[in-house]
Every structure is written in structure tokens, then in C-alpha cells.
């Protein structure tokens, strides 16, 4: 390796190896050399080199399963690497566990938070930090919490129990926790996957402020616009190896980075012009109550055959209730709903399925699939009582297996087979499995929530293409989402939800990110 850990492959657009503006060129804070880590036959990381300088924000990019989390877990001491070494400020260190990592100045905010929900913000910060005499220094902790909050705009009420914090606030607490323990390098594993777009700006401001004080940051994401906006430099992983490095993310196009991530060009699908048919789903004056979250108030909307209707809005404005009503999880208080002209009587999931509704829930892991059972079980779940999979109350295991195998093949679901535990699949493959199960029976109407949340570009593109293919076949689709660009690309019409109502509906020709954004704040109504 001749002491040149940064030796990546040459790229046409990576012309300079000089670190971006404003970042001092100094000895790396952290250096990982030749890291290799296998899980059985899977090489999650292979000879990966990476370094972060003080004050630098390094983007770690890659599709789902590229090995980003594994690499960071190696750095944080959760896994011992099969080969390779880690240097902190030029000295080799052995990191066996998170305590070693923290001692070396490495802090990590995991994809799933590690907080004690019943304890307060301050108590969570003080867990495991005893003072010199073994006493807990509440006053000192409070002062530091205030200080960190002031410096980086990361304010939190110290006495609130964690259980009442929003996801964004919990993430903030995790960041503060790392700083509290003296982290010089902060790792954030897909921090924006759980945030609403408005919260992302706040996070970025805080990260820039920390970098400004000399902290090194590793920012993991597969959202290219975020990486381009925030990072000084990027390392792109593909199949566990470094596929490339980007020295000026801000001046590199998303298409170039996407190509590095996926290994091939990603062309956005085109929405062909179409002539929509009759309304296949209509909601008339739907109101709800008794639902955690914003209830619906007098919502009326319709979708025609061969049309895609987007539902935009800041999350928490009734989207969840809308999805639950349409999918039969929440019977409305008032109003009527009809599918293909037939009025819905009971609002049970089973009735709606029978009427020809396909559904993809927002939360794949808890609502969509049964993670502890074989994938095949989840794939046949909604239709287990039909002729296709059972007769007279007896299952037809051969038919179930054959169906799952066929769908795995048709949708290119990467998994060891239909009998694998569904929870072992990655998010993108789970989403494909759910899509396969709903589309296999040609729904007349499809309702999907956050269809590509957490998915990488390749998987997202696949999902988009399927939606457009269904549209061409005359299916009416409702897409509930927060990503306005995605909605503008997919949808024929976009309705905006605000405080449980439809604030207005635009045809996509009239819509723009700016206009929708304004409507989402309740500023403009449009019928």
C-alpha cells in the first residue's frame, strides 16, 4: 500500500486531490487502511481506505448494502475487521468496542438510536459519565448541554423525557451525546433518512458549525443532493469496495455520482401522456377522529384510471390518517368512499382488497411484513384465504412457494430464497416484495405511502418504473410523499394536505416545487 491510502481510481471529474475551500490541510484525524470485513460469503468491505481531516465533512456514499454501515461499525468497534488498520491522529489504535472508540474520540449516531426512553434528556447524557468521585455532576452537565446548544443551534429541554421527543430531537440528543463525550470525529449513519425536509436544514447548519470548530464528520447518505450540499469530499462504496472518490462534490453532478454508486447511468423514467379513464377511487367528505396524529377534516378527492395523484404536504398534516382510511385501517367518522363505483361499506382491509385496492404502507417493517416469518408468508398474507394459496382451509405450500419464487425472480428481489426470514432483507428488497405482492393481482387502485423512503437510486428507479407501468395499464395510483421532485416527476395531479384538509390540487403542469412548498405552509389555497 506504499503509504498512500488515498489512492483511488482516477476519475475524469476528480481532477484535484486538494481538500476543498476552507478546510485546513493537516494530518488526518482518522485514517482507515485496507479494511476488509466479511460476513460468511459476503464481503461487506474489501480493502477500503478512507481518511478524515479535522474540520472536514466526508460523505460516505453507496447503494443499500454497499457496506457503509459495516465500515463505520468497524471504525466504532462493533466489528473486528478481518484485515486492515485504523489510525487516530497518525497512531495505530486497536478499537474493540464502543468504549475504545469513544476514548479515541470517535462518536457515532446510529441509524437506530440508543436512548433510554423513560429518562430525561440530561439523564441520557449523563449515563455512563461519572464524575471524578463517582458522583454525577448534574450542574456541570447542564452547563455543557446549554453550551453545546448555543454553539451549534442544538437546543433541547434538559428535563423532557426522551419518550416525548420527536425523531429529529432524539437525533439531536444523540449528536449532543457524542459531543459530550469529547468526540473529535462524528459518524452519522443516514441521519436524514428519518428527518422531514425542514429538519434537514437544521441538521446541516449544526454539522457545518461543528466542522467549523475543527470536528471531523463522516456523513452517510444515498441522497446525492444532500451530499453535494453538505460535504467537502466523498468516498463512494460499491459492493464493499471503493468505487471512486469525489473531491469537489458541490461541482460534481448528481448523474456522475449516481453512476459511481450504481456502476451504470441512471436515466429518469418519462411519464408518457395518457388519457385517464373514469374515476376508480373517490373520497367524499371524509372526516376522522380517534387517530394518533392529525385527523382528516372533510377530505374529498378522486383518482381516475391511468392517473397518478400525488399527496404532498409537510408530514403530520393528516397523510397518515388518509392512508389508513383508504387502506381500511381506520373507518372514517363521516363521509363516503367508493372504489370503481362500489361504495365501501365496512372499511376493513379485507373488504378493500376484495374491491381491488392494492396498498403499500409507510412502515414496511411493522405494517407491511412479518419480519420473523419466511418472506413467502408475507408475500401471500393478504390472499392466504383465496383459491390461489389454500383450499378448504388447508394451505397449499407448493403454490405459496412457487408464487414467492416467481415474484422474487420477476422483481429481482435479492435474497437467499422464499424461506428466508423477511426481516433479513434490505429496505429496497422489502419494498419490491411488497410491491410484488400487491401488483400480482392487478389492483384497480394502488395507494402507496413514502414509496422510496430509505431506498437507493437504483431501487427507487425500479419502483417508479413499476408505478408508471401500472398507470399505463389503467391503474389509478395515489402516492403520498414528501419528496416534491419525486411527486412532480411521477404524478399527473398533486393535492396538498394542510392540517387535515386538502389545501388545493394542481395539475403537474401548473405545479412547481416553489408553488407546492407555499401551499404546504397553508399560505395558498387552490381548488
Amino acid at each position, binding site marked *: 500500500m506504499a503509504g498512500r491510502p488515498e489512492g483511488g481510481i482516477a476519475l475524469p471529474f476528480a481532477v484535484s486531490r486538494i481538500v476543498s475551500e476552507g478546510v485546513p490541510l493537516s494530518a488526518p484525524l482518522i485514517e482507515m487502511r485496507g479494511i476488509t470485513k466479511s460476513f460468511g460469503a459476503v464481503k461487506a468491505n474489501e480493502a477500503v481506505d478512507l481518511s478524515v481531516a479535522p474540520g472536514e465533512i466526508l460523505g460516505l456514499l453507496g447503494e443499500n448494502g454497499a457496506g457503509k454501515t459495516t465500515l463505520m461499525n468497524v471504525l466504532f468497534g462493533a466489528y473486528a*475487521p478481518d484485515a486492515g488498520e485504523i489510525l487516530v491522529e497518525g497512531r495505530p489504535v486497536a478499537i474493540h468496542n464502543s468504549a475504545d472508540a469513544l476514548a479515541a474520540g470517535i462518536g457515532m449516531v446510529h441509524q437506530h438510536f440508543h436512548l433510554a426512553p423513560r429518562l430525561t434528556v440530561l439523564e441520557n447524557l449523563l449515563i455512563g459519565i461519572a464524575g471524578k468521585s463517582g458522583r454525577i455532576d448534574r450542574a456541570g452537565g447542564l452547563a455543557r448541554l446549554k453550551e453545546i446548544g448555543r454553539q451549534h443551534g442544538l437546543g433541547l429541554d434538559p428535563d423532557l423525557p426522551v419518550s416525548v421527543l420527536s425523531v429529529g430531537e432524539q437525533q439531536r440528543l444523540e449528536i449532543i451525546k457524542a459531543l459530550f463525550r469529547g468526540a473529535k470525529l462524528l459518524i452519522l449513519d443516514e441521519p436524514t433518512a428519518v428527518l422531514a425536509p425542514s429538519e434537514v436544514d437544521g441538521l446541516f447548519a449544526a454539522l457545518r458549525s461543528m466542522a467549523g470548530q475543527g470536528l471531523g464528520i463522516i456523513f452517510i447518505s444515498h441522497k446525492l443532493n444532500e451530499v453535494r450540499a453538505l460535504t467537502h469530499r466523498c468516498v463512494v462504496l460499491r459492493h464493499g469496495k471503493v468505487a471512486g472518490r469525489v473531491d469537489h462534490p458541490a461541482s460534481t453532478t448528481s448523474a456522475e455520482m449516481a453512476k459511481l454508486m450504481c456502476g451504470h447511468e441512471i436515466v429518469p423514467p418519462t411519464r408518457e401522456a395518457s388519457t385517464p379513464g373514469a374515476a376508480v377511487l373517490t373520497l367524499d367528505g371524509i372526516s376522522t377522529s380517534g387517530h394518533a396524529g392529525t385527523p382528516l377534516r372533510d377530505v374529498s378527492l378522486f383518482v381516475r384510471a391511468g392517473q397518478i395523484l400525488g399527496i404532498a404536504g409537510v408530514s403530520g398534516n393528516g397523510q397518515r390518517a388518509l392512508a389508513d382510511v383508504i387502506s381500511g385501517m381506520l373507518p372514517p367518522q363521516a363521509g363516503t368512499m367508493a372504489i370503481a363505483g362500489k361504495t365501501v361499506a365496512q372499511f376493513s382491509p379485507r373488504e378493500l382488497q376484495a374491491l381491488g385496492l392494492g396498498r403499500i404502507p409507510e412502515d414496511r417493517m411493522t*405494517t407491511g411484513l412479518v419480519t420473523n416469518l419466511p418472506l413467502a408468508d408475507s408475500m401471500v398474507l393478504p390472499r392466504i384465504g383465496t383459491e390461489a394459496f389454500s383450499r378448504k*382451509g388447508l*394451505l397449499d405450500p407448493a403454490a405459496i412457494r412457487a408464487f414467492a419464487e416467481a415474484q422474487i425472480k420477476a422483481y429481482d428481489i435479492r435474497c437467499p430464497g422464499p424461506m428466508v*426470514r423477511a426481516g433479513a432483507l434490505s429496505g429496497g428488497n422489502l419494498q419490491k416484495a411488497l410491491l410484488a405482492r400487491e401488483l400480482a393481482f392487478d389492483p384497480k387502485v394502488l395507494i402507496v405511502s413514502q414509496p422510496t423512503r430509505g431506498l437507493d437510486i437504483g431501487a427507487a428507479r425500479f419502483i417508479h418504473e413499476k408505478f408508471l407501468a401500472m398507470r399505463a395499464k389503467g391503474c389509478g395510483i395515489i402516492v403520498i410523499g414528501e419528496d416534491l421532485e419525486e411527486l412532480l416527476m411521477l404524478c399527473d395531479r398533486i393535492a396538498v394536505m394542510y392540517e387535515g384538509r386538502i389545501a388545493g390540487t394542481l395539475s403537474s403542469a401548473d405545479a412547481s416545487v416553489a408553488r407546492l412548498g407555499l401551499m404546504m405552509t397553508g399560505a395558498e389555497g387552490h381548488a
Partner: protein
Amino acid sequence: MFRLEARTSTPAWFNLALPLIAIAVTLVLCSGLIAMAGAGVIEAYGVMLSASLGDSYAITETLVRAAPMIFTGLAVAIAFRAKFWNIGAEGQLLAGAVASCAVGAIPMPGTLAMLLMALAGAAAGAIVALVPVMLRVKFKVDDVVSSLLLNSVIYYALMALIEGPWKDSFSGYPISPPIEDSANFPVLIEGTRLHLGVIVALIVAPLCWFLIARTTLGFRIRVTGENAEAARYGGINVQRVLISTALLSGALAGLAGVGEVGGVHFQVMSDISPGYGYSGIVVAMLARLNPLGVVPAAIFLAAVMTGAEAMSRATGVPAFLSDVIQGTALLAMLVALLFTAYRVRRVGATT
């Protein structure tokens, strides 16, 4: 240093190995108690083994003991599959015993009597199990607590019955009148107590496996237990599945009581069950909630129970050891189950 690391998959042989390891650990741990009681460990376990499985009579006695625990084990296994936490198999067993005893005391042809006893006992167990499940479904009452407390209610109702209307008027003992002789379950091997109910238990176990693994109801039970929200989203009527599960579970536990009345005691008394309902929980856990595993697990516990009595007589170690072994086996199994989700990894000096 060692550390637990999450597994992504569980090897199939674990299902077999874990209970065996748990049992081995249990026997090792309990050998300390035997030594403390002043007996030879090998000798004590030797007596237990020969008294429970050493000859054909011992084996039939062990099977007779195993039968009620097969039923209660199945009852618990099926309930737990749906995450209906039925801790009430004991009460359901008692209810089944009382109902079958009442039916068996009515003169009628033997075959009809046995059939009606089974039906009545199963129905009584099912009705008792209906209470906690309805409380849960309608009012979100915790089923662990309600099913457990119901055991005492049923027990004291039984006591009231045998101290009151059913009391033996000649002797004054608190025992019910016996069932008709014609209603006594036939003995399968002359000179033993091996009765028809034991064979029924051995047949019902694979039927339960078939129900769970191969029917739509079993599918719905599994899915509901693993993820009720996904089940509901997928069109399963979760409440109905829970109620069906409870009825089935209660009926199985009720049959345990039927077997004791029709095949062993021919009447009802206060100690008709030495806690077979609770042992059913241990059996189900050792069996990893697999109905087929319930049979060997129940036979193991039955062997411990019959063996412990003989060991106590031969070595002076108190027969309570049988309870300790049961409890330890449950704990060992619960710990062993951890290893289906996690593996132990050595972490030490690397690189």
C-alpha cells in the same frame, strides 16, 4: 472478553439442540442440590432414570403422567404462537375435569359417555379460556394476569363443589361421586394404567402441528402472533383469530382434565392436578412452541416427576427436587432461546 452479537439467521439444528442443552444444564445445576442433600449424584439420577424409564411398567406410568402435560403443553404452545398469553391452562384443566366428571356420572353406554365427557370437558376449558381473551379483545385487559387469576377462581369453585353439593355423604371426604364404571377409559395394557386418553394425546399432538403448519387458521395464528399490525393490514381479523386460538387452547387444556377423570382418578378431588397446567408452560417452552416437540418435552417432565418420587424414597433427597428441575429447565430454556437471536463472539486482540 465475550460479547453477544445479533444473528441474521438461526441454524435449523438449534431447534433440537437447544432443549437438549437446556436439559443437560439443568441436570448439572441440580446435581449440586442433590449433593447438598447428602446423596450421590450419579446414584440419584440413576434411580430417577430406572424408576421412570427403566422397565415397561415404569414407561407406562411415565406416559400416563405425560398425557395431561401433552394436552396442557399443546394448549400453551398454540396460545403462545398467537401471543395469547394463556397462563390459565390449570384452571381450564380443572374446569374440564369437573365437566367431564358431571357427564361421566350419568348412566349411558360407555362409548357415548366417553365421547360426551371429552366434548363437555373441552367445552368447559374453552369457555374458561374465553374469559381472558374477551377481556383482552374488548377491554385491553392483560391476558397474563386475567388468565392466571382465573386459575384460583376455578380452583375455589371446584373446592366449593366438592365440599358442598358433590361431597361424599358416606365418608365426608371432599371428593366427587365417581363416574360410571362404563365411562372409565379402557386400559390398553393389562396390569398397567395406560389408558385410551394417552393414545389420544399422542394423536392430538401431530394434529395440532398440522393445524399450525398447514391450515389457513394456523397461518393466521402464526402471523397474528408475530405481527398483529401486519396481520390486520393483510386482511386478517385479528380479534377473531385470538378468540379462535383461545377456544382451541382452552379445549386442549380441558381435555387434560378429561383424561385425568376418565383414565386415572374416575372422580374429582382437590389435588387432581399437581400443577399440570403450569407444567404445560415449561413443556411448551422446551418444545419451542412446536406441537411435535411437546410430546418429548412432556415425557421428560413426566419422567422427572415419577423419577423424583422413587429417588426420594431411595436416597432421602426431597421429592421437591422435581419442582426445582422443572423451574430450572424453564429458566435454562429461556436463556438458551437467547442464542437463537444472538451468538457469542470472542472479542480480543486482533489486527
